């Protein structure tokens, strides 16, 4: 299905204060792929992701989602297709209760009554946050907020899922839960992470971003074997590949 392709060509982003956050980035992600974008702090990962559904406007370059180029006119459609989970859940949760917050998207899509309720309950159950529905978001812990933030996007049933550091700040149980959730999501997914073990587990393809430019783009396994590349980009090999027996056995056991 061609409409789930994400194509970025010669993207550049300069912030108003003059910071060149993205230099010249091009890639194409096809339907059903799961791609990790990794890199050190300040590499420009969040900036890049926020272009994918038009939250930031490119200084130059183009973005196409399927057959539609991203522009002011196509923005509503593209936002329906691309679901975006922000790095900081506080940016995402703004309604009086968790339920209202998750319902916000479906209501904007024009759903009503029972349908909204069904969507919300499903999304909350998927992230294991069903018991939080009546709570106000500001009373949640960091990890719970993160899960609710993911549910707000799942409730809109996007075709392409974009997540900015989905597992940062989660305990290991919640991390596993989010990982299996991501594995179940069969459409295109793109996320950034510092959790390279998760990247190895979920993504066939990895893009390394370094100071706003793409340093490598290829199969995850190959990229993580390239020690020099990882060192220049201030990254560390995942535990599972470091030949540490305890960890490798652990990861093997969880693989199907």
């Amino acid at each position, binding site marked *: 299905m061609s409409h789930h392709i994400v194509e970025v060509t010669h993207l550049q982003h300069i912030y108003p204060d003059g910071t060149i956050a993205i230099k010249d980035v091009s890639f194409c992600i096809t339907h059903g792929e799961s791609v990790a974008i990794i890199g050190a702090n300040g590499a420009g990962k969040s900036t890049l992701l*926020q272009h994918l*559904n038009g*939250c930031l406007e490119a200084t130059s370059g183009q973005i196409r989602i399927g057959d539609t180029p991203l522009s002011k006119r196509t923005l*509503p459609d593209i*936002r*329906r297709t691309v679901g*975006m989970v*922000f790095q*900081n859940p*506080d*940016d*995402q949760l*703004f309604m*009086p*209760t968790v339920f*209202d917050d998750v*319902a*916000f*998207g479906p*209501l*904007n*899509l024009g759903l*009503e*009554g029972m349908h*909204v309720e069904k969507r919300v309950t499903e999304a909350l159950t998927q992230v294991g946050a069903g018991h939080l529905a*009546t709570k*106000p978001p*500001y009373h949640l812990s960091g990890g719970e907020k993160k899960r609710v933030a993911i549910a*707000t*996007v799942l409730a*809109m049933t996007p075709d392409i899922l974009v997540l900015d550091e989905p597992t940062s700040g989660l305990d290991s149980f919640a991390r596993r839960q989010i990982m299996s959730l991501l594995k179940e999501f069969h459409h295109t997914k793109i996320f950034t992470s510092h959790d390279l073990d998760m990247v190895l587990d979920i993504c066939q393809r990895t893009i390394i971003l370094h100071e706003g430019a793409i340093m490598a783009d290829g199969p995850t396994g190959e990229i993580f074997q390239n020690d020099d590349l990882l060192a220049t980009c201030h990254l560390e090999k995942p535990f599972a590949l470091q030949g540490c027996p305890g960890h490798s056995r652990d990861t093997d056991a969880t693989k199907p």
Partner: protein
Amino acid sequence: MMSINAAVIDLKRLELLADGNTPTHALDARAKVLVTFVFIVCVVSCSRYELTRLIPFFIFPTVLIALANLPALFVARKIALISPFVLMVGLFNPVFDHTDLYQIGHITITGGWISLISLFIRSLLTVGAAFILIGTTGFAAVCQALERLGIPRIFTVQLLFLHRYIFVLADETSRASRARELRSCGKKGFGVVSFSSLVGHLLLRTWHQAARIHTAMLARGFVGQFHARRQSRFGVVELCYLLSWSSLFIALRLFDITGTIGKVVTGIIP
């Protein structure tokens, strides 16, 4: 003094009250907005020396708090919060207005004092009515009702964002002042200097945070229209609600009920 954080959480609690399920909550928001509007107009239009006519108006907040099962003490405390501001506004009335109005024994009560008390009662009533409206309806539903009553969308959306930004500002304030408090180790924290820089930071941070939340709303399909979860229509019940309260308020405004009762009573007892 309540910390900023606690004040915000209290405000949000007011919003949560709107999730109740009494018959008052289930009424169409438009009926409640209109009734509140008529109430406020009737109260505000009383003359500046009016006292007795205002008292019967307390029936509206009292009955609604009971019907909607709102925590009375909580609402009372919220309303009490504004009293210092009202007193500040009316502070100079007694100083400048020396019209003699009443004579109790040897004490002359000037118009200034009466108008201060009257102002105070009127603000209690109007702010109370507004709080009760939010507590039984919810802010989003109120804005939606305004829109359905013909107020242009640009105003109602502004109102909604204003309401959101108050929370954003308050959240940022509580975070920043906590950070300053913790790092100033119980001392004054470099006093005015660090405080002014904190305020500057705060405005910028609030601005950015508000922009990010707006982005998140856009990302979830927001196109300038808020949807209240409760579906309702303006039916017979709403019409009765509107007509009965409005006619009561207008009657209370036009006829001096307390005065009449007083005259009747004093007339009976010579």
